[in-house]
């Protein structure tokens, strides 16, 4: 059992650490989005839907009248704090942030923002979607096994709960690993199992096949029954004016009462068979599900509705997905989510370090150990450096750069690659301290960078209650302090052991 736990950790620890860090940061994606688009004003939400819908419809009418699909996201909470529109069609696709007062587009820099950081969590990068789904799914299952085998191995789990013996080498690392794991254990089990549920259709195709038949057609039939389209329609080919969206709101309120409209999806907006889907808030509660109303696009007549709750099995899936995403969480629970994510990263990082410390201490001296020691530095300390580089690139790359958003992500991976090279060239002990110092400097300087490259520095953000902007700057300072503390602790350890 211990052998299995150690080997699985060794093989997949790096990837899992990456997933925990990007997942935890991804949880804060709307705040990161805001920092990476400093041109946006401080968010004000919730806003009354009528004027916002009017402005959005007018904008789409002017700028995307040939598109086949429109979508409007209304500012209702911190998860979606801005009025946004998006469109898709033969002429291409696009998106824009709108000022709800004037209806004009707010020009923002081309950036992937926090959303892209979030997507790294399950899409990784530079890989086809299918491949990353399998890799992430496999890693998640390995994590589940690692958690269970870790529990089995940790016999005296209650007796040893508060054990922490610092300064004792391998023993201390084991204690830290156990502490991080046990304290956040319910969260880790939930986040891992629910993560698997996200990709279960891909990972376990043989199961629906028992009811629907094998092969692609069976799988498609299954998915069509799980996610049936609401009031589907083929485009008629005849043009017709789209009904004013705000006219639907009285009917929506009659159906939903005070529950807000989160987004509106319009199919074939200028067709006689246009369809309008009015979608409620997916993050209203732990279940990742929303009421949906379907309207005829021309007459505004209600065609169909789908309540958030449809069946217990679906609701179970919605609950697991909702718990994983944690969007429903009020502030204190939200902070616990972030803390638990960080503890998960610490759980994995301490495990990775423990593996090398244990073998060093018992006198192993093979090349594999040296390799893993250096890889550990580059992965554990290099990733924060790389993510900081992503934020630096957001402010330093020229605004007119072609494929600017892509280059921000390239900057992240280039910086990470540099950290691997650094770890290859320096002794592991020195590299730990140096990369920690670099991470500290890059993070702590972010508020300064913000002040120099935008109008929304920390002082103004606090004055305007621009919590996302201020929160990011303060969190960057805290992260800088954390890494600086690590660097000092490492320096002291080096001074002692020579």
């Amino acid at each position, binding site marked *: 059992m211990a*052998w299995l736990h150690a080997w699985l950790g060794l093989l997949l620890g790096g990837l899992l650490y990456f997933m925990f860090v990007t997942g935890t940061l991804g949880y804060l994606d709307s705040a990161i989005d805001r920092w990476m688009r400093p041109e946006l004003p401080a968010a004000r939400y919730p806003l009354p839907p009528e004027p916002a819908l009017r402005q959005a419809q007018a904008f789409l009418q002017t700028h995307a009248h040939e598109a086949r699909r429109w979508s409007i996201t209304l500012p209702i909470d911190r998860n979606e704090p801005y009025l946004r529109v998006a469109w898709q069609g033969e002429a291409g696709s696009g998106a824009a942030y709108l000022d709800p007062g004037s209806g004009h587009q707010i020009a923002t820099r081309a950036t992937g923002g926090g959303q892209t950081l979030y997507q790294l969590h399950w899409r990784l990068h530079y890989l086809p979607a299918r491949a990353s789904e399998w890799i992430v799914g496999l890693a998640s299952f390995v994590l589940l096994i690692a958690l269970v085998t870790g529990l089995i191995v940790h016999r005296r789990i209650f007796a040893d709960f508060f054990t922490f013996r610092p300064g004792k080498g391998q023993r201390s690392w084991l204690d830290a690993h156990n502490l991080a794991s046990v304290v956040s254990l319910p969260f880790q089990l939930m986040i891992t199992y629910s993560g698997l549920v996200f990709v*279960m259709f891909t990972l376990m195709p043989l199961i629906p096949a028992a*009811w629907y038949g094998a092969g692609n057609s069976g799988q498609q039939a299954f998915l069509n029954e799980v996610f049936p389209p609401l009031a589907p329609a083929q485009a008629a080919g005849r043009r017709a004016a789209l009904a004013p969206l705000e006219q639907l709101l009285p009917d929506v309120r009659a159906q939903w009462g005070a529950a807000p409209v989160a987004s509106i999806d319009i199919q074939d907006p200028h067709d006689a068979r246009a369809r309008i889907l009015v979608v409620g808030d997916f993050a209203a509660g732990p279940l990742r599900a929303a009421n949906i109303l379907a309207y005829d696009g021309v007459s505004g007549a209600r065609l169909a509705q789908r309540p958030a709750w449809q069946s217990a099995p679906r609701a179970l899936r919605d609950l697991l997905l909702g718990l994983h995403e944690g969007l429903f969480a009020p502030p204190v629970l939200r902070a616990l989510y972030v803390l638990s994510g960080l503890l998960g990263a610490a759980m994995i990082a301490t495990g990775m370090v423990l593996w090398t410390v244990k073998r060093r201490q018992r006198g192993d001296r093979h090349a594999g150990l040296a390799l893993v020691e250096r890889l550990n530095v580059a992965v554990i300390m290099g990733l924060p450096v790389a993510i900081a580089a992503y934020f630096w690139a957001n402010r330093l790359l020229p605004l007119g750069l072609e494929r600017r958003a892509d280059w921000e992500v390239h900057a992240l991976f280039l910086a990470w690659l540099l950290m691997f090279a650094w770890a290859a060239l320096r002794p592991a002990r020195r590299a730990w301290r140096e990369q920690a110092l670099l991470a500290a400097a890059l993070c702590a300087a972010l508020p300064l960078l913000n002040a120099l490259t935008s109008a929304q520095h920390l002082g103004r953000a606090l004055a305007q209650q621009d919590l996302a902007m201020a929160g990011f700057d303060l969190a960057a300072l805290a992260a800088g302090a954390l890494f600086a503390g690590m660097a000092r602790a490492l320096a002291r350890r080096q001074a002692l052991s020579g």
Partner: protein
Amino acid sequence: MRAARWRLASRCVAAALGGYALASTLPVALVALVAPATLARADAALVALQLSFVVYTGAVVWAFAARSAALAWAALVLATLLSGGIARVVL
């Protein structure tokens, strides 16, 4: 030494492949046996899917906890065949 390595490798394969096979069949059998006839097949499949990772985890732990690799294989294969049979009959 050689034999021990092969036995360990055997357990790994049993866990990975045998576990997957059991995780693909036992949940189906369980749902088919226990679920009411009124349960829509999409819902039945959803329940089985969500159960599957518990089964897979249990199978992996069994593969390494069983007294011998042979026993690990035997139990997994037997359970898979039994579940597959039940699923085939009931569905």
